[in-house]
């Protein structure tokens, strides 16, 4: 297995795809985080007008809003590890290099296992790089104000890395199922940029902001995984700040949590652990289907 993982790393490092996608991912994550930070004022103002804030007498400065930009940037940048994973098997099928890969591996399961491990590692590499870029973007965009606490940053970062790993494996499975690089890229992009976000909005609209079917779909669950931490952090901070103000009802707090979740991009999600479990299940489902398809595919 070690030999095959080494071979997979050599495959990845001997062409330019990995850094081509990585550079774009870093730019997008950094730019997105920086851009959102720069419109922070507008968003913050809106939130400060909310009843919760007013009733609680909260000061915006005490709330670490920038965590929202971090999750937003992660959510958008996960497109790239997803594409990277999508091309893992699809491009080998498309370029027919899969033939030699199969012929030099003890059997298909070993090769696919090695690919899974290799691409999980690469998903994590993408995740860490994206977090760094997004953090840098926020620091630049906010000028160093309203930064999140280290623990919040760390838990969001961990959720972001996990999200990238799972998106990579989900993409890998989809690519293996489709079998064509172009088809895979189109399907993944259309889902990641259009169908996923739009269906989240539509379902959440019907559910009036409650946790709903959107949170059970891959995109919603993935956003819930990263967004829930941010939303919970904000809610906790508000609760902590609002101690002693009796008029902050649980209803209002919940409403605020939804608003924060909306801001963090985790529409209709079921909370951190449930979202993580749901997205993990989706990723494994596609990964397993892709491997099963590759296992039985005739290479002609």
């Amino acid at each position, binding site marked *: 297995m070690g*030999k095959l993982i080494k071979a997979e790393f050599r495959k990845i490092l001997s*062409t330019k795809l990995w850094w081509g996608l990585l550079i774009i991912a870093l730019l997008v994550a950094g730019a997105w985080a920086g851009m959102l930070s720069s419109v922070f004022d507008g968003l913050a103002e809106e939130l400060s007008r909310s009843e919760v804030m007013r009733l609680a007498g909260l000061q915006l400065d005490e709330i670490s809003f920038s965590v929202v930009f971090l999750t937003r940037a992660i959510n958008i940048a996960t497109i790239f590890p997803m594409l990277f994973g999508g091309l893992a098997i699809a491009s080998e099928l498309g370029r027919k*290099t899969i033939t030699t*890969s199969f012929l030099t591996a*003890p059997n298909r399961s070993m090769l696919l296992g090695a690919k899974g491990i290799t691409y999980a590692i690469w998903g994590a590499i993408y995740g860490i790089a994206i977090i760094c870029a997004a953090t840098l973007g926020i620091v630049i965009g906010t000028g160093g104000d309203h930064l999140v606490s280290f623990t919040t940053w760390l838990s969001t970062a961990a959720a972001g890395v996990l999200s990238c790993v799972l998106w990579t494996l989900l993409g890998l499975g989809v690519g293996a199922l489709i079998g064509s690089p172009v088809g895979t890229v189109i399907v993944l992009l259309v889902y990641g940029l259009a169908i996923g976000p739009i269906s989240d909005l539509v379902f959440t609209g019907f559910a009036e902001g409650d946790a709903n079917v959107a949170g059970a779909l891959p995109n919603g669950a993935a956003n819930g995984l990263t967004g829930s931490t941010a939303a919970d952090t904000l809610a906790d901070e508000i609760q902590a700040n609002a101690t002693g103000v009796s008029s902050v009802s649980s209803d209002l707090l919940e409403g605020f949590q939804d608003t924060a979740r909306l801001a963090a991009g985790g529409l209709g999600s079921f909370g951190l652990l449930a979202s993580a479990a749901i997205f993990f299940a989706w990723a494994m489902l596609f990964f397993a289907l892709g491997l099963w398809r590759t296992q039985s595919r005739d*290479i*002609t």
Partner: protein
Amino acid sequence: MHDGSGRIEVRQLSKNFGSVQAVANLSFTVEPGSVTGFLGPNGAGKTTTLRMILGLVTPSEGTATINGLPHDKLGNPARVVGSVLENEGFHPKRTARNHLKVYAAAIGVPDQRVDDVLTAVGLTEAGDRHAGGFSLGMRQRLALATALLGDPQVLVLDEPANGLDPEGIAWLRGFLRDFAKQGRTVLVSSHLLAEVEQTIDQVVIISHGQTMYYGQLDDLRNAQRPRVLVLPSDQNALTRALREERISEIEPADGGRLAVMNTSARQVGDIALRAGVAIYGLEERHADLENLFFQLTSGQYTAAPPQHQQYGQEPGAPYGGQPGAPYQAPPPGTPYGAQPYSGYGSPQDGWPQQGAVPTHPPQQPYQQDEGNTGWGGQR
């Protein structure tokens, strides 16, 4: 563990792609120490068979083993079998050296091996160029280099001469011969017999996914009956004289000539001299192997195989680039038709002597002719 024999065994192998039967009940054995040609027209099922041997295509029925085991049970398969397949891919932006390094890692051989195989196929200079810029011939060499990485015991090549220039083909020929001389196994497919004729010892000829001939190439050669074309002053007198010498297979040929089977030009000349018949033309002809190959595999794309051919108007003769090439007319009643080995058992009925006859065709309906000297020089 595999048995280390270097033997490829194909047993009752079939493959259906949807409703299309690509390979039908194919059986043969490839022995180590020899180069075996795997011949058949395009679409006969060669590539599918080779890919089943290599575990890339799952057989519908039957088994294909190397060293007694299917490909996915070989452990580190690239140490046992290397292959050069058609349609094999290289990442266009990966250099030849990096391509080889990827698979050297997968096989577990040191990177030094990469330079060794690049040298072996003559690609050292081009090692750091992208495979996307390679000519077809260079790609074939790179594919061969990849096949050799694991220093395998068995080599399987699918149409390796495609894209090679004459120099490359000659080089490949020598390479494969040397490889087999080391006691290793070579299975090489081609749709042109002439292309591999000088390289192979043993031959498996398939058509319609079925075995048409399986045995030594020399036996196939010896099965050719030479014919003598003679233009006598008096056809009847010569025919009579020949019959007196018990040479009875005589047929009229074009241009007033006679085609005489199972004899030599010298014998016909001597008989004609004794009979007092003048000879205006005398020519010894051997049907070439390519034509026989065509006979064995013809009918794949035609409704009815040519059953009775006239000398000089052989319908399918253009195959092999010799239109109207001399070919002995099959005398009616001889088993020499489109299915010359019909006595050998319909492939659907299974291989009657499977495994027991790697060196001789099971049946020889042809008459052997030891005087077949014309082919001796070929080898």
